[in-house]
């Protein structure tokens, strides 16, 4: 069925307002959209890694989650989800859960809990082939502890552990390409998306991921106004700039087949993304022009590689 924004927005909310996420935080938008992608008749269990989302959405005695939810620790959302999925199988086989009902098992973590400390359990769960979908809300740093660099932080971003200074132009290394790593796990469905427009791209990918059997992965570029240093109401513009500069290309990989889901009419220069955010401010200082050139060269190279995979 074709995507209809009005219909989607008329669905019962499964991630409620009243949570304590910052104004303009992308994670709340991810959660609302993720839960809209679960069919209304189906239940869900959400396994959440420690992070901003966890401390903001389930602060005792309140929860923003309409569905069952579990948080155990930082690095083990995928392992926890593996256990929930194993229990689901066992209980269904033993007749303790009706066969005709469906519960979707979702895991969600930030980039710290996914790219870094949670990577081992993520990789293990994908290798074992549990039937669940992992959503990474990638906001490019450890935001809950105050914007420390992660392996998802892009090169030249100033983070509190890679600050810019007289001898520093921010983080030295490029972002780990986790989406490609998850493709290499042989997952039946891996996608990259972000928050823009009518959320059609997000919704379709999330729905396809959730309703594909096996371990599936959706990587969502999720701006953080505090860490990226931009006004809270500019989130959608920043996401749009990320896809139009091809810094965060939108694509999906279905059983190993690559498909580009968005190609900008005119590929914009990386400054369009970087200049909107305080974390790249130093790149625009006289003498640091090379950083923008280097960032552009890297994006061009990665984009070409992706286009080749999609051809």
């Amino acid at each position, binding site marked *: 069925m074709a995507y209809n924004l009005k219909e989607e927005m008329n669905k019962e909310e499964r991630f409620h307002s009243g949570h304590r996420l910052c104004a303009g935080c992308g994670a709340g938008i991810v959660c609302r959209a993720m839960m809209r992608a679960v069919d209304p008749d189906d239940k869900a269990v959400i396994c959440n890694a420690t992070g901003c989302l966890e401390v903001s959405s389930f602060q005792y005695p309140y929860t923003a989650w309409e569905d069952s939810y579990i*948080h155990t620790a930082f690095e083990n959302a995928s392992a926890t989800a593996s256990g929930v999925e194993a229990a689901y199988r066992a209980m269904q086989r033993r007749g303790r859960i009706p066969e005709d009902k469906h519960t979707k098992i979702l895991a969600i973590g930030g980039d710290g809990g996914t790219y870094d400390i949670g990577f*081992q359990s993520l990789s293990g769960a994908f290798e074992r082939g549990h039937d669940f979908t992992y959503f990474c809300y990638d906001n490019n740093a450890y935001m809950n502890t105050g914007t420390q660099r992660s392996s998802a932080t892009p090169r030249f971003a100033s983070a509190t552990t890679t600050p810019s200074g007289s001898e520093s132009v921010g983080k030295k290394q490029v972002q780990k390409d986790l989406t490609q790593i998850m493709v290499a796990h042989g997952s039946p469905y891996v996608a990259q998306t972000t928050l823009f427009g009518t959320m059609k791209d997000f919704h379709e990918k999330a729905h396809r991921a959730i309703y594909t059997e096996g371990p599936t992965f959706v990587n969502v570029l999720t701006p953080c106004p505090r860490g990226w240093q931009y006004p809270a109401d500019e989130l959608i513009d920043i996401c749009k700039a990320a896809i139009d500069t091809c810094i965060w290309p939108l694509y999906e990989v279905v059983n190993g087949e690559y498909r580009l889901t968005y190609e900008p009419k005119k590929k914009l220069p990386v400054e369009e993304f970087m200049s909107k955010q305080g974390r790249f401010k130093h790149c625009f200082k006289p003498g640091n022009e090379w950083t923008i050139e280097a960032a552009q060269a890297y994006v061009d190279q990665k984009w070409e590689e992706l286009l080749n995979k999609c051809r």
Partner: protein
Amino acid sequence: MSIRERMSGNEAIATAMRQINPDVFAMFPITPSTEIPQYFAQYVADGKVDTEFICVESEHSSLSACLGAEAAGARAITATSSAGLSYMNEVLYVAGSLRLPVVLAVACRALTGPININHDYSDSLAARDSGFIQLYAENNQEVYDNYLMAHRIAEHPSVRLPLMVCEDGFITSHAIENIELEEDEKVKAFVGEYRPEHYLLKEENPLAVGPYGVSGYYMEARVAQAEAMKNAKSVILEVAADFEKTFGRSYGFFESYRMEDAEIAMVIMGSSAGTAKACVDQLRSEGVKAGLVKLRVFRPFPGEELAAVLQNCKAVAIMDKSEGFSAMGGPLFAETAGACLNLEHHPRMIDIVYGLGGRDFTVEAARSVYDRLAGIAAGGELGPVYTHMGQRER
């Protein structure tokens, strides 16, 4: 009718697991506990159980998966040793605080430094404050029996705490001994099914597990958990009473061996107790009033009961098979001495750290401890309170 068999402690645990047929078993190999999931994998392969058996990529994940499974409404188990238990450490605390009654079999083994695969309790006793109930065993029979009681204790509504069934690595885990097994159907009937009231997969009533607890709520959660651990004491005895009625073997918090009129005694855990009992018999035949207390339950610590048994002794040696690096004795000493603090007349107490990394413990070694106790009891010098035994002299 009990079934007379002979098998190792690991096979005895695996047999109990087969009889219980849990919903989920998340495994990761580590010596000397590895055989437990290996036996179990064969039961799965042969269709003797229909458990969801998942081979995860670490111990951190094996226990995390057990938490997910238990919270989801399933009975979940795992097994580990040494570094594996250390690697689980963070998740052990989460298990206790989430009140998820995972049963964890531990083949106790020394912690690394230097790396060593043999027995001591540095792994399980390092986890003594994690919120797990801990049961210890002298031999294969006790390991098996403890495992049959484990789920009922852990899952009891007034407890709901995770539980470790501890055996001595290699000594108990690998040595083959005679054992009385119980019939599958009787075991199933004794252990029962796990039917929690609230769980993630309950269709009609979703559940949220693992909140952020600010200062205004954290302490209440911790106190509730502490109360549950206190409640575990009576539940352990209730389950033991039913076990005795059903299977005929008797268990308490500890075994008092020839303690009725004992003037000198040892407090000891695990397989070493068998060696020390031989020494007690020898001493008794010589007219020495020696006794022994073999601790079965370390958590909850049966302090009052232990103090009551020790109060009439003149001198007691606490035998610690782990080094706590407190510079004043091992963990069993600290707990036992603390338990005796408010006795009107408490015995003089010394701590002997022994058997680290599988260093042998002999009847002669036990004898040297009792000889020292006899001297103290006769009014001699107490001497150093905290010493090590069995190490090579410089």
